[in-house]
């Protein structure tokens, strides 16, 4: 090791020499400040003190920082041998090899599938919702504006006539909210579906989740958006949610499984290689 560590000798090690210059400098500086609230004379003494400290400090590190050589402590005071027997490590579930794991639940769907599923679900869901708007309410813009009203104060207080008209802000807000949520839910499907009881993924993704989600919204809608609460048609709402769930779940379910990257190091996952060569086991 010694060649890597220029400060270590066979039986001693170089350490920086203890010095009082830092405390003198710090004390001087504090006196400078203390003088501002008492008497400028104190500041004067303080600045002299700080100057002396700074000069002394300078001589300490110039041209090379001062060191003193400290001997190692006696052998019996040194660190004890680390106990190597160690303790056994419990194995994973019977039948599984080893005792270490990065937990993976079933198949791993690629995240791209989640994004795609979310987007496809978003489109289908929008079609169902707009169809409801057009057929039942006579306006394709109503469902869009209703969604936007959750976040847009202008639409939240608008009358029914205004809600049925085209609104540029409403469209933008609705599209952003709709796409963000859909993609997030799509991603959630890729990670959560494999954790649920196998073979029934479509029930979970297509029916159960949308119904739970709808129930959550139904119970809190008065607070989330009074406007939406007033106008929403729950049949159409649940229908569009289920359509989303089915489409998104289907796309995720059909995707090819990929190897997980989770055993990779941070640097490798980020695509930058740090100092050590890759040693994937």
């Amino acid at each position, binding site marked *: *090791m*010694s060649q*890597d*560590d220029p*400060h*270590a000798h*066979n*039986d*001693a*090690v170089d*350490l*920086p*020499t*203890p*010095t*009082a*210059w*830092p*405390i003198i*400098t*710090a*004390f001087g*500086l*504090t006196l400078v*400040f*203390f003088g*501002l*609230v*008492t008497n400028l004379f104190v500041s004067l003494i303080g600045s002299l003190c700080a100057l002396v400290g700074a000069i002394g*400090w300078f001589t*300490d*590190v110039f041209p090379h920082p001062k060191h*003193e*050589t*400290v*001997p*190692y*402590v*006696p*052998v019996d*005071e*040194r*660190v*004890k041998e*680390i*106990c*190597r027997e160690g303790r056994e*490590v419990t194995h994973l579930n019977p039948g599984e090899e080893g005792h*270490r794991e990065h937990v993976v639940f079933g198949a791993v769907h690629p995240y791209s599938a989640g994004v795609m599923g979310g987007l496809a679900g978003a489109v289908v869901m929008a079609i169902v919702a707009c169809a409801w708007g057009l057929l039942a309410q006579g306006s394709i813009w109503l469902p869009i504006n209703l969604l936007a009203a959750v976040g847009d*104060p202008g639409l939240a207080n608008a009358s029914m006539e205004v809600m049925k008209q085209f609104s540029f802000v409403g469209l933008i807000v609705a599209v952003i909210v709709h796409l963000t949520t859909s993609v997030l839910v799509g991603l959630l499907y890729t990670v959560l579906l494999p954790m649920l009881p196998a073979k029934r993924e479509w029930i979970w993704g297509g029916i159960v989740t949308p119904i739970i989600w709808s129930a959550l919204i139904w119970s809190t809608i008065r607070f989330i958006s009074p406007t939406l609460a007033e106008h929403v048609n729950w049949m159409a709402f649940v229908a569009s949610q289920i359509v989303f769930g089915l489409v998104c779940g289907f796309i995720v379910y059909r995707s090819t499984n990929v190897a997980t990257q989770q*055993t990779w*190091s*941070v*640097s490798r*996952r980020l695509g930058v290689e*740090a*100092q*050590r060569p890759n*040693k994937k*086991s």
Partner: protein
Amino acid sequence: MAHGPTTASEEYIEVAPSRPGQEKGSFTRIIQELVFTVDHKKLGLMYIGSGLFFFVIAGLMATLIRIQLAIPNNHFLEPDVFNRFFTMHGTAMVFIVGMPIIFGFANYLVPIMIGARDMAYPRMNAFGFWMFFFSGFLLYASYFAGPGLYNAGSAPDVGWFAYSPLTSRAFSRGHSSDYWTLALFSGGIGSIATAINLIVTTVSLRCKGMTLGRMPLFVWTFLVVAFLVIIAMPPLAACQIMLLLDRYLGAAFFDTQNGGSAILWQHFFWIFGHPEVYILILPGFAIMNEIVPVFSRKPIFGYPIMVAANLMIAFISLGVWAHHMFTVGMSSVGNAFFAITTMLVAVPTGIKIFNWLGTMHGGKIRMELPMLFCIMFLFQFLIAGLTGIMLAVAPFDWQLSDSYFVVAHFHYVLIGGLLFTIFAGIYYWYPKAFGRMLDNKLGHLHFWLFTIGFHVTFFPQHISGFLGMPRRYYTYDAGRGWDLWNMISTIGVIFQAAGIFFFVLNLIWSYWKGRKAGDDPWDAWTLEWATTSPPPDYNFEHLPVVHSRRPLWDLKHPDDPDWKYE
């Protein structure tokens, strides 16, 4: 790698300059060592020791505040005395208690954890400590200078965020605001020096094999904290310089009667102030990251995402400052923007909480004292985080801000979060620093009294906040629904004080009488446990070489090292 230091013990050359007349252990010798030292371990302990000293003083102030508020229309304290107390309590707790204690942990542990002999700039390290130390006394000198003890001196009475124009010459006569400014300014110099030192140490002095991806999360977190310090402290220094110019040289940056802006101070202060909150709470996370895995006997769950969450928290924290200013009349767009960024903080924070739960899940949790404090931290920090979300909802904040709800919220963050992990850290590393375990019985007394006292004190403050009680009131009328909650709150203080008493007793008692700890009492995995307790001046005879995140696991299980799997 042949080594023969074991046979050379009689050949030690006494090269260290001997200081005549001063045997090891004598009082003057100890003082001299403390004054002269540039050793990161001694400085770390001095940081923590002086931080705890100021903690007790500031805690006593809080006790007096609570006595005053126990009953309505109390005349225990004069309004001015009360205002000085809450200002000094807040200022001291943040700047000369919280910051030094976390810097103490960093100073002591970061070099050992990365397998270095000392900090990168040992003299600057000493300088940073002494700047902080003297700034603490400068702050408290305000009680004795000026009108003196008779009229409680000219201690700052402008609140810890010293909003202008209350600090301008017209409204703050005498030197009270100047003490606040100058003490924090000089302390800030020390903090910046220490932070730069920490960054350089972490970046440049890691032992062989300690890549960034293998650094203990403790070190990672403190690296982030140090970056936040050097980005956030200078703005404070800058606006303090402007305030001094206002007060001494007649400038008008923040003097509204001469065309200055009151809002600008708030922006500048919170550009510092909000990252400061994360400077204080991230070290709590750092300590959690070390203790939870060791006592659950498992590696940390999701190391990469924990690192990423740290970085995300630090990054977002730089863009949320104005959520302290929802009530100043910003435009609706401004309010919405800062509400959104603030809520985003919940995401990485949530990740951390879940990952700690994930670490505990499937482990064998040893319910030792450090772990008990960590479990309570999880519970309390959860509450603090959720009340934080409530405060981030800007309309809700219009009701909650500057009420006792906020007081409850940040005490859940800073006591329930930071202080509990500081306690956990002290119980965990005390054996390393002094070679003796802290007493278990006293420790349990401390834990239970303090936990109960903490919740009894601060939980009711959520409710008095809901009932419209503003903070910083020295008195209140009966009949407004606040009496009961304030009384409960004050009763809780008794338990907290008792807890702290047993804690201090434990620290002193165990120093002489505690059970011998040995090198590695907790069967832990990071490098500080690979040296003696207390470590020698040079930390390691030979610098370690690591191959994984848990170097001591590799040594304890030579057939089954971590690096085969990471």
